[in-house]
């Protein structure tokens, strides 16, 4: 994944992202941090083609997202898992159906889909809640459902926006371990977080944004080299 001089401006004269250039290699794990409103979510939205950059080019999985046609976006998104800051779960579907969405859109046979969803929910500790609706879940439970949906189809890229913001410290470690293990299986991971304890614990690469600019790019303690994702 590569960004070349990317800027994003929602209002004339104000930049949510300003001249950001960076490269993330395949299978790499990156923490994205920075103060509130620094542009973390915006950066993820650009990678995900939920927003178009005002300037610059963005290469994701061999495609230039800055110039992608509307018809090609779904195919891209199926290869990218996302945990949104506000979860974005469908209130009128059960937990299982929400997670299964990511498999339904690629036409996975129902039986196989159910089995994989069950395994996934088990690994986030919510298999017993699979027939409930999101509204009847606690904040942390909803967050884990969102993560399960993002990971269930084994995406090539995982973008997780504050995935442990509503979790207690023990659960946070469990969930982060899950994400890290996906990354060791080859998934490129970007995790936005405010939790410095987490960043220190894992010793991964850290990108620090401030006012839309990359002000720090701290490499991982034990660097693993791969191709650009």
């Amino acid at each position: 994944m590569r960004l070349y001089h990317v800027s994003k401006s929602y209002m004339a004269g104000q930049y949510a992202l300003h001249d950001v250039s960076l490269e993330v290699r395949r299978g790499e794990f990156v923490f994205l941090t920075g103060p509130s409103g620094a542009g973390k979510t915006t950066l993820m939205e650009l990678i995900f083609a939920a927003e178009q950059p005002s300037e610059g080019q963005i290469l994701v999985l061999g495609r230039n997202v800055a110039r992608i046609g509307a018809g090609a976006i779904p195919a891209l998104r199926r290869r990218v898992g996302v945990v949104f800051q506000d979860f974005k779960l469908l209130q009128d579907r059960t937990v299982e159906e929400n997670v299964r969405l990511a498999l339904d859109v690629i036409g996975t046979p129902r039986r196989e889909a159910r089995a994989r969803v069950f395994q996934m929910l088990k690994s986030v500790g919510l298999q017993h809640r699979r027939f409930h609706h999101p509204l009847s879940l606690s904040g942390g439970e909803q967050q884990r459902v969102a993560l399960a949906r993002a990971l269930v189809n084994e995406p090539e890229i995982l973008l997780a926006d504050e995935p442990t913001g509503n979790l207690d410290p023990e659960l946070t470690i469990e969930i982060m371990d899950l994400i890290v293990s996906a990354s060791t299986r080859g998934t490129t991971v970007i995790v936005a977080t405010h939790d410095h304890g987490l960043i220190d614990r894992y010793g991964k690469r850290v990108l620090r944004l401030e006012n839309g600019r990359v002000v720090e790019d701290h490499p991982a303690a034990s660097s693993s080299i791969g191709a650009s994702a």
Partner: protein
Amino acid sequence: MSRVLMLIAIAFGNALRGIRRASTTSLLAVLTIAVVLVLVGSAALLVENMSGLLDEFGAELQVTAYLEPGLPAEAQRELAERVGSAPGVEAVLLVDEAAALARFERIAGGAELLAGLEENPLPASIEVRLRADARTAESLAVLTDSLEGLPGIAELAQGQEWIEGYARAVALARGIATGIGIVLGLAALLIVANTIRLAVYARRDELDILALVGASRTFVRVPFLLEGTIQGLLGGLVALLVVWGAYELLLPQVRFGLELVLGRAELHFFTTVESVRLVLAGAGLGLLGSMTALVGAGSET
């Protein structure tokens, strides 16, 4: 291949779930479509029965051919037969001199008028009833042309004005019916499209979220289109039942009223084909409605 079948199965599943889950919006949409189709159906039934009555009324229109005085009864009958085989003729009735006199005397004051006369001044005539499709000014012209040449016919009382009036009345009625049909049809389409659009709008999160997990436009849209179609189908069925119920309920009164005024009332409900057409119209409205709803929603996704 099995992927495609799977996707189709999922689309159907989603459509049915959509209806079941979004029960509030679905119910309101079905209800609205039903109400709209009750209007359309009632109007169609009214127009159909009206035009039936108009047909019966038209059957009374006729051309009268007055025969030359002194023609023997035998010749009159022969002539009547020849007239009967002319183009556009449905039936003929021979009224000889005696019958004409008898008729005239039945008119108020007629007997007194003729009291002073020794001889019956009234001519024999042949009354020609026209086929439904020949009740136009043009057909009439053809008929009268062919009748005027026949020996033994003195004069044609064409009823030209009557026929023209009738033809115009039919055209006017048809015009009004078409007008009502167009207005109602447009209104139905607009209302149903609006309703489904609102129903889709109430669930815009769903469209957004599906797009975010990488659902293709087709995957997102097909269930909504199916849902709209099924809602339309259900609305059509409800409407058919309501119209039928109202028809059965009101039939006795309406028939009584019509018989008083028009002397007859041949009323009938939709045929099976027409009933099916009404229900299908509902499905079509639902499909069209959800298509327009999604066109609008597309800009937001």
